C-alpha cells in the first residue's frame, strides 16, 4: 500500500485530491469526539457573527458556530454519499457481472431495466422518493443510491464482457471453474481499478446531489446540520451575512474538487487503458 502511495503521490492530481480528501475525512472524524461548539446548542444571543477569533467561520442565524457545523456537515455529506455509492456498487456490480456472464435474454432484460431507471430524471425522482417516504438522510441515501445502480451495472457489464474472451479466463473455464467462481475470482478483481475510479466520481456527485436535496429541504433534518441546508438557510441572509452562504458552498466545492482530482489521479495511476472501454 505504501509503495503504491509513493508512486501515486507523484501524480499531481492524485496528490492534491488525496490531501484534500484526507483533510475533509479527518475533519468529519474529529467531529465525532470534538467540535469547537455544540452544533445542537442554539445561542440566539450571538447570532450572525462574522468570521473572527471566537468563531472562525462566524455564526448562523441561531448563533451556532459555522465551523462546527461544517465539521459535522462533512460527516453527514460523506455518510450519505458513501452509502449511496455502496448501494450502487452493491447492487450494480453483481447485476452487471451476472448479465455479462449469462448473456442472452437475462442480459437484455437487466440492461433494459437499467434503461428504465436512466429514463427517470434523477433529481425529480429523488424529490418524488423523499415525498413518498418523507424527507431525511436515509431516504436521501436511497434516492441517490438507486441512480447509482445502473451506472455501476453498465460499467461492470462492459468491463466483464471485455474480460471474458481473455486468455486467462478461458484457461480458468477450461479448468472447469463455474461462471460464478470465475466472476468472483478473476473478473471482479480485474475490474476493481475501474470501479474505484467510478466510485470516487459517484462519491463526488453524491455530495452535490445530497447538498441539492438538502437545499430544497429534503435531505438531512435538524438538529444535525448539513451543507445544503446551511445554504438554504443562508439564502435570504446573503446581503448581511454572506459568510453563511459562501462557507458551506466552498466546503462543497473543495470536497468535490478533492474527490474528482483523486478520481482523475487514480485513473492515471491505475491501469489507464481499461477506462476507455465502453459498452
Amino acid at each position, binding site marked *: 500500500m505504501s509503495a503504491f502511495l509513493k508512486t501515486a503521490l507523484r501524480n499531481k492530481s492524485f496528490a492534491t485530491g488525496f490531501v484534500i480528501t484526507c483533510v475533509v475525512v479527518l475533519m468529519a472524524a474529529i467531529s465525532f469526539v470534538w467540535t469547537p461548539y455544540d452544533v*445542537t446548542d*442554539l445561542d440566539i444571543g450571538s447570532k450572525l457573527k462574522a468570521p473572527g477569533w471566537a468563531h472562525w467561520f462566524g455564526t448562523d442565524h*441561531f*448563533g451556532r458556530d459555522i465551523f462546527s457545523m461544517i465539521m459535522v456537515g462533512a460527516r453527514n455529506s460523506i455518510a450519505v454519499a458513501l452509502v449511496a455509492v455502496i448501494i450502487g456498487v452493491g447492487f450494480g456490480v453483481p447485476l452487471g457481472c451476472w448479465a455479462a456472464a449469462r448473456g442472452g435474454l437475462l442480459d437484455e432484460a437487466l440492461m433494459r431495466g437499467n434503461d428504465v431507471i436512466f429514463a427517470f430524471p434523477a433529481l425529480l425522482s429523488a424529490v418524488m422518493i423523499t415525498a413518498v417516504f418523507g424527507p431525511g438522510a436515509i431516504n436521501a441515501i436511497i434516492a441517490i443510491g438507486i441512480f447509482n445502480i445502473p451506472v455501476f451495472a453498465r460499467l461492470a457489464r462492459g468491463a466483464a464482457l471485455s474480460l471474458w474472451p481473455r486468455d486467462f479466463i478461458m484457461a480458468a473455464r477450461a479448468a472447469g471453474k463455474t461462471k460464478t467462481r470465475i466472476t468472483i475470482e478473476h473478473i471482479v478483481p480485474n475490474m476493481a481499478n475501474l470501479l474505484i475510479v467510478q466510485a470516487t466520481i459517484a462519491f463526488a456527485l453524491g455530495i452535490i446531489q445530497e447538498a441539492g436535496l438538502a437545499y430544497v429541504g429534503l435531505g438531512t433534518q*435538524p438538529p444535525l446540520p448539513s451543507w445544503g441546508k446551511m445554504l438554504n438557510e443562508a*439564502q*435570504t441572509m446573503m*446581503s448581511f451575512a454572506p459568510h453563511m452562504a459562501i462557507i458551506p458552498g466552498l466546503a462543497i466545492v473543495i470536497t468535490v474538487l478533492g474527490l474528482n482530482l483523486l478520481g482523475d489521479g487514480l485513473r492515471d495511476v491505475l491501469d489507464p487503458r481499461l477506462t476507455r472501454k465502453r459498452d
Partner: protein
Amino acid sequence: MRTLKKLLAVALMTTAIAPATMVGAAFAAKTSLIMGMVLEPPHLDPTAGAPAAIDEVVYANVFEGLTRIGSKGEVLPGLAESWDISEDGKTYTFKLRTGVKYHDGSAFDAEDVKFSLDRARAEGSTNAQKALFAGIDSVTVKDASTVEVQLKSPAGNFLFNMGWGDAVIVAPETADGNKANPVGTGPFKFGSWVKGATLNLVKNDDYWGTPVALEKATFRFISDPAAALSAMLAGDVDAFANFPAPETIPQLRADPRFNVVIGSTEGETILSTNNTKPPFNDVRVRQAIAHAIDRQAIIDGAMFGLGTPIGTHFAPHHPAYVDLVGQYPLDLEGAKKLLADAGYPNGFKATLKLPPPSYARRGGEIVASQLRKIGIELEIIPVEWGVWVPEVFKAKDYDLTIVSHTEPMDIGIYARDDYYFNYNSDAFKATITKLNETTGEADRYALMAEAQKIITNDAVNGFMFQLAKAGVWNAKINGLWENSPVQANDLTGVSWSD
C-alpha cells in the same frame, strides 16, 4: 337628501376626473399594482375552500358580503347598507343596497342573499366555515332589498361572521363556476390566471360604490422567501402584505424605496400539544414545557424579533386580552422538578411535527433545543400541509406540533369536541357557551378573560407568540392594510402617489 346625493355624485365625478385631466401636466400616477403572495390559491371560490390565499385574492376585491371587516377589525356595511337587530337578539333585518350589479351584468337582490346563506349552511355544502352559519334558523326574503335572518339563539358575533370571506354573496347562476371564473359584486373583476405564476384582476367600471384607483391588480405567487426578497429588491413586486422572510426586514427597512410596516395578525403561534397522549396528558408535563420555553428567544431566532409573546390563545391587540405571559416564566429547575413530579425525572422522547412555514420550521428547531435542556428529546419531523392536515389535524397522530391559528377570535376551538388538541374541560366549555349567549360587551370581555385563564392554567398548549405581519411595499403606495384582522388583501383603497 336628494340634493346631497347629487352633490356627492358631482364630488365623486370631479375627483374621478381630476387626476385624469392632470395627465398631460404631470406624470400620471401608476394605476397598476403587483402584489406578492406566498401561497397560490387552489381556486377562487371563498365559499368552497379554507385556504387563506383565496380570500387574500378575492375578499373585498371581487366578492362582497352583507358586512365587511375594516382594517381595524371593525364591522362595516357591505352589500347591506344597514340592519336592525330585534330586542331578543335573534332577528336581523338587513336593508340591502340597490343598483348593485354582478360582473356579468346581472342584478343583485335579496334572493341572492337567501341563496348564498342557504347554500353555505345546506347539508353537503363544501363551505369550509360551516360553523359560521350553524346558528341561522331561517333566511326570509321580505322584498327585493330586505332580508330577514332568524337565529336559533342570540349570537354576539353574527355581524362579524357575516363579514368573513366564506359568507360572501354569490349569484345562483354563476355560483358553480366561481372556482375558475369568479363573478362577484366587487370593485375588481377577474382577469386572467397563469397557474403557478400570476393572477390578474381588472377594475370593474360598473361598481356600485367608490371606484377604485387601480386599473389592474396582479398577484404574483412567490413561495420561496429568498425569491421574495430578490423580487422585492428588483422591483418585480410592488408590495407584499405579509413578507415571508422576517430576517430581511431590517435590510428592507433601511432601503428608502420601501415602506415597512409591522402590524399584527390574528395568528396565535402555539406549540400544539396532544393533551390525551401520555406523557402530555399530565398537566405537570405541559406546565414544565411552558416553563422551559423561552418565548423571546423563539421570537428573536425564528422571527428576527417580529412578534409579541403571548401567554394564552388570544390576540394581544384585542381589548379583552389578558397578559398571562408571566404565569410560566422561564425556569428550567422548576420545569425539571415538575417533570420529576410527573414521573419523568430523566425526561422523555417525543416527536415534533413541523409544517412548512418558517415560523414552524425555525421555531421548532429552537423549541427542540430548549426542551432538550430539561431532558425532553424531540425528534423533528418536517411535514407538508398535505400530510399535516390528515395526520396531525384529523387523525391526531402527533405529540407536538407548531402552527399559527390565524382565524380571528378563535379561542372557541378549545371548547370543540374532537379538536386536535384533545383538550376536554367542562369549565371551559361552560364559559364559551355562556359567551355565545351573551351580547353585552363588558360581560363578553369578562367571559373571554375567564376563558383565557382556564386554558393557561391547564397549559393546554405551549403559547409562544402572536405572528406579526411584516408588510413591505413601495413607499409610493397608499392604502394597504397594516394589520390583518381577516385574511385579505383589501385593495379598494390603494393608490399610488407621485
